[in-house]
C-alpha cells in the first residue's frame, strides 16, 4: 500500500494543522462551538427536506425518444398522512431517508418496514411491536403523526397511492 502523506487541511474552518491523514479530532466544547451553527442548520435543512413530499423523475433515452417518468407517492397509515417523501430508483426500487440503506421492492414493503422499525410510533396495531412508550423522553416527537392509530384493536392499515405521469 502506498504511504504518501496526505496534504494538510485547508477548508474554510481550518484552524490548526491537522494530524497525519489531514484529519484531526478534538472533542472539546470549544471545538464543537466553532461548528455548532453549521450543524444546527444541517439538521434543520434535513428535517425540512424530509417533510417535503418527494417526487422522483426517471429518465431514459430509447430509439431517439426521451422518456421521463415522474412518480409521487401519497401514503396514509390508518387514514393519517405519512408526510415523508419516498423516492424510486431507475431500477424501480423504492427508498426513503428514514431507512437510507434499503431499496425496497415496493412502497408496500417499505411501509411495512417503517411500521416494524418504528413500531412504537404506530402503537395499537396487532403486530405486538412497539416498546413501552414510557421509554421516550419528552423529545419533541410529532405525536399527532406518530400515534396516528387511535383505535387500539385495528391493524395498521396502509394506503399507498402512486401517480405516474408520462410525457
Amino acid at each position, binding site marked *: 500500500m502506498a504511504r504518501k502523506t496526505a496534504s494538510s487541511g485547508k477548508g474554510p*474552518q481550518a484552524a490548526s494543522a491537522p494530524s497525519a491523514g489531514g484529519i*484531526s479530532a478534538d472533542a472539546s466544547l470549544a471545538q464543537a462551538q466553532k461548528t455548532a451553527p453549521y450543524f444546527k442548520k444541517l439538521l434543520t435543512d434535513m428535517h425540512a427536506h424530509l417533510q417535503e413530499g418527494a417526487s422522483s423523475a426517471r429518465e431514459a433515452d430509447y430509439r431517439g425518444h426521451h422518456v421521463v417518468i415522474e412518480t409521487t407517492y401519497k401514503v396514509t397509515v390508518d387514514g393519517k398522512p405519512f408526510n415523508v417523501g419516498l423516492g424510486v430508483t431507475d431500477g424501480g426500487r423504492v427508498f426513503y431517508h428514514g431507512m437510507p*440503506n434499503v*431499496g425496497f421492492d415496493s412502497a408496500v414493503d417499505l411501509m411495512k418496514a417503517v411500521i416494524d422499525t418504528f413500531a412504537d*410510533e404506530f402503537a395499537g396495531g396487532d403486530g405486538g411491536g412497539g416498546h413501552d412508550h414510557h421509554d421516550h423522553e419528552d*423529545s419533541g416527537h410529532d405525536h399527532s403523526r406518530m400515534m396516528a392509530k387511535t383505535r387500539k384493536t385495528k391493524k395498521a392499515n396502509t394506503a399507498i397511492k402512486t401517480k405516474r405521469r408520462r410525457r
Partner: protein
Amino acid sequence: MAVRRNILTDAASRQKFVKAAIALKAQFTGVTTTSLGIAGPSRPVSTWDRFVAWHSAVMGIAHSRPIFPTWHRLMLRTLEQLMQQALGDTNFGLPYWDWAADGQLSNAAQLTSKVWNDDCMGSASSAPGPFTLAAFPIRLASNNAGMLAQVNRALQRTRGVGVPGISNPSLPKKASTAAVLTTLPYDTAPWNRNSSGFRNRVEGWNPPNDLHNLVHIWVGGDMLPATSPNDPVFYLNHCNVDRIWEAWMVRNGRTYLPTNTTAGAPVGNRLNDSLASPFGPSVTSAQVLNVGSAYTYDTLTV
C-alpha cells in the same frame, strides 16, 4: 501508526474497541442537545452520540453521493483518534469486520460467527454483549420522519431477519467484494443511487441491497435508521468498506470523480469541496484519498 486489523482474529483490537466505545459513550465535554439543535429538554450529549447526530445531519449529503467513501473515511478516522485518546494508545487502529468471509457461511452459521460473541458485539437482540443499557444507553434515535429525538433505551438488533421483501438475507458474498474491485470508474453521473461505478456498487445500490447496505439490513434494528452509528457494528462495517475502497485504489489508482470542473457535478461532492467536521478542521475528498501515513490495514485481501 495505527494498523487496522480483523476483529475476529485480533483480540487486542477487539478488546480495545469495545473499551473505547464504552468510554466515549460516557465522555461528556459540555455539548448539549440544545447546542446541537435537537428538540426536547437540554441534556448532555456524549462524544459517541455526537457522531450519531453528525451522521444523521449529513444523511442527505454523504449518502448515495460521490463523497460516501470519503466522508465516512473522515468520520472513522476522527473516531479512531478519539478512541486513541481515550485509550492512551496512539497506535490503536479501528478493527474491521470482514463480513464477506462470514457471508460464505450458511445463514445459520452467520448468526454464530465470533463477531457476535459476548466479548465482542454480543448476540442478544436487546442490550447485546458488553453494550448493556447501563453502559451503553441509546440516547438519540431517528423517528419515522427521520428527525432526531431523545430516547432512553437499550441498543437493538434483529440479526439475519431482514425487512419486508428481503427476508432472512445472507451477508454479502466474496463474489460481490471481488466484483466491486474491478468496477470502474469511481463514480458516474447522475452521481446518485442510479450511478454505475465503484461508489454506488460498494454502497450497495447497484446491484441493490448488496455490500454495505446489505450489512445494515442484515444487522437490522438500530442499524436501519439514519442514526445507525448508535451501533458499534456500524464502525466495523464501514471500516471494512474503507478497506475495500483502499484495495480498489491500490488496484485502480487514487482517483475520484467528479472533479471541480466536471459539468453538472453536485456542489459539496466534488474533489476539492470541503467535508466539514464538528471535531476539527474541514478536509476535502482529495485530502483523504491517501491516508497511508495515518493508518494501514493488515491485509487488503477482501
